[in-house]
């Protein structure tokens, strides 16, 4: 039940990131996604992995809180398509996680698919560097979380007990916000 | 080495004397005189050309003597298994075009003449397709009923082509009608090979004895006579009729002969 709730929180956080343009909204989104993922990862991969994700997410949220367009700007005018996107994506991922795929870690699958899907959607539809770097940070956390899925033993399926992917993802998430990006690269 | 040298000597005699150059000039000279006497009755004898021969005459001579030693003439020093219908056909083919090397004016209707020559090649080589033998005397000796239609058709096509190939047709180029008529060296050199090849291909070979010699030359003279008569008839028909005949009759007939050869090969297979 806890994992289901955490998965919902992760989805809520991703929706905030998709719908918000202001730095506060984005920071809130990061916090929610981090929290959701950390809780779910804690169940499967243990405290160190969950802690790494948490620290990474927190650093990203703190950085985002101080950089980017001011305010919340949640659901600015013309964001109806984004709302539809969040809801539709949630439903689709729900169906995939809980019926199309079987075995125990469906909440983790839901959270990961939500984070991956909506973060790449956000990158493809925005030009604002702060939004982009936010999505990248969450994408990194989502990738790390995939370590916990499945039980295959080699190749792409190799599930390692080490926490290196989580730590690396945390680093990427934390540092992403600091990347000096000029708004327009056009000379 | 002795065997090779004697072979060379034998073939040299055959090429130069009999059935080679000497026989060609003798037979050709006589028949040419008869032709000139019958085709255009002018008083006096035709004059001989006093200029040095051109490479044309040289080429025609080489081609003619190469063809003549392939004939099944009695006492021919070239052994029977060494004779080849392909050598005869190609040798004679060269004689038709040598003059074109000098100037275009010496050859009338070259395009039509080329088609006629191809029909003649079919008439000469057609009989060899089914028997798969290249010896002229063997082809002459073929009396298998199944092959007779091809043989007869080819013989008739052969005779149809000769007046054009020997330039007996009225389509001769203008340059030939100046002053007193000269002996046509080209025709002199080709009478014997053309008529002798017909005798060899379409009549059984004669023995190496006097009667055989008489029969071979009798038949060859007969072929020459038929060609002369055909030449005279063709001369009188005029250029237009002759051109039409060769275009609309001889060429389709050659197609028929080709069909006969193919059909015979299928049936005899």
């Amino acid at each position, binding site marked *: 039940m806890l994992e289901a709730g955490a998965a919902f929180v992760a989805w809520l956080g991703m929706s905030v990131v998709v719908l918000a343009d202001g730095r506060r909204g984005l920071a809130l989104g990061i916090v929610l996604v981090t929290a959701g993922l950390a809780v779910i990862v804690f169940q499967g991969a243990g405290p160190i992995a969950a802690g790494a994700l948490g620290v990474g997410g927190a650093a990203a949220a703190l950085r985002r809180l101080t950089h980017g367009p001011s305010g919340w700007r949640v659901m600015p005018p013309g964001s109806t398509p984004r709302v539809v996107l969040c809801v539709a994506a949630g439903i689709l991922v729900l169906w995939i996680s809980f019926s199309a795929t079987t075995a125990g870690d469906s909440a983790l699958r839901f959270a990961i698919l939500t984070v991956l899907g909506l973060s790449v959607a956000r990158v493809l539809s925005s030009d604002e560097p702060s939004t982009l770097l936010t999505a990248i940070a969450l994408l990194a956390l989502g990738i*790390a979380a995939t370590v916990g899925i499945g039980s295959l033993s080699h190749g792409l399926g190799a599930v390692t007990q080490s926490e290196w992917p989580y730590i690396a993802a945390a680093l990427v998430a934390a540092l992403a916000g600091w990347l000096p990006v000029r708004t327009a690269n056009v000379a | 080495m002795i065997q090779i040298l004697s072979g060379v000597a034998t073939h040299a005699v055959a090429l130069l004397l009999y059935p080679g150059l000497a026989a060609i000039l003798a037979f050709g000279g006589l028949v040419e005189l008869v032709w000139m006497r019958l085709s255009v009755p002018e008083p006096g004898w035709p004059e001989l050309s006093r200029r040095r021969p051109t490479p044309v005459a040289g080429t025609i001579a080489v081609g003619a003597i190469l063809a003549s030693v392939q004939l099944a003439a009695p006492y021919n020093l070239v052994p029977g298994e060494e004779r080849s219908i392909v050598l005869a056909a190609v040798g004679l083919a060269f004689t038709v075009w040598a003059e074109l090397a000098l100037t275009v004016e010496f050859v009338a209707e070259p395009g039509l003449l080329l088609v006629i020559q191809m029909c003649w090649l079919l008439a000469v080589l057609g009989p060899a397709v089914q028997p798969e033998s290249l010896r002229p005397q063997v082809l002459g000796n073929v009396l298998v009923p199944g092959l007779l239609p091809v043989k007869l058709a080819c013989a008739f096509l052969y005779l149809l082509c000769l007046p054009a190939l020997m330039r007996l047709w009225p389509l001769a180029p203008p340059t030939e009608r100046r002053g007193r008529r000269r002996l046509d060296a080209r025709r002199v050199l080709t009478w014997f090979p053309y008529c002798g090849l017909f005798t060899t291909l379409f009549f059984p070979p004669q023995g190496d004895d006097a009667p055989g010699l008489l029969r071979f030359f009798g038949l060859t003279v007969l072929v020459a006579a038929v060609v002369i008569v055909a030449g005279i008839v063709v001369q009188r028909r005029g250029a237009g009729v002759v051109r039409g005949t060769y275009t609309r009759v001889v060429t389709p007939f050659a197609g028929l002969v080709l069909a006969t050869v193919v059909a015979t090969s299928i049936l005899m297979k």
Partner: protein
Amino acid sequence: MWRESAEVVVFTAFALAFALTFAPAPTQRRSLMFRGGVGLAGTIAIAAVPTFELSLLALLVLGVLHAAVNGKQSFATRLRAPVLAVALLALALVFARAQGSDVLGRFAAVGLVAGLAAGIGLLPYLHPFDPEDPVSASPIAWFAFIGPVLAVVVVAGTHGVLGPDAGGAFGATLVGVGLVNVAWGGVAAWSTENTIAAWRYSFIADWGLALCGFGLTVADGRRAALLVIFSIVLCRLPLYVASRQALREKALTERPVNLVVAAALAGSAPFAGFAARVLLLRGATQMFWPLGLVLAVAMLLWLPGSLRLGRSLGLPRGRRALGVALVLALNVAVGLYPLPLLQAAGQ
């Protein structure tokens, strides 16, 4: 798997060394050294890390850094394809590991192929391209620097995780996407007006062959793909770097060197491209011979474009001429005797 990716990393290192050695201006050399070094570190990371997730993270970092490099295109525009690649590969990972119906495996295969195409910059996920961009900021960096290692890691990683059915879908999709890129790159390299764009399309065409090689799930297909990657990294990329100066001066020449370069780019004998094509035909014949016929015909598309690219090299002099000669000699050697290269990669 790691021997193959290690070898590809060595290829990229050599290519970087060539670019640094024969880069015309000292100012370019410093920025190239920094960017190239970061890129090389990234490729080493992709190849060396123990798990696929870490490879994806390394790829994500490279993508972000490359997007941040100043060039004609905006950060957002250049970020999209790499991020899409990472996301698709991660999604494929989820589907590959999840339990469920066979369709999931197939979707995993599609995700891997689409992610690979997006990562390299092939159809249908082309990277934005501006002829004025410096090499290190242009999609050429993905084609010839990061892409090769990514391709080897992804394809090698699929062994054992995709079932027979999904594996077949993976191979077939790779071949399909490869053929589309072969056709598009081959025709565009010939018909496009801009010569620098023609170079880019020629990379796309070469990658089409590499994908077809990877898609042929036989040993000869993998060998062919490795040789195509070799000719991308250590033939097409160095020659492109060497031709940048002439491209700016728009100097077209028709000397022996231009035509020999055209032959190398066209994959004519005796260069490495022809050996790759022989192996590709061999692999295709083992799988499905009509594919061999399609590939043989498609291979002719390289010629017209290559003649044009060969002429765009201009007349290299001094150090550049030496560099071009080295590249051609290396490609002839590998073209005639590719065995050491293949054995080093464990093929």
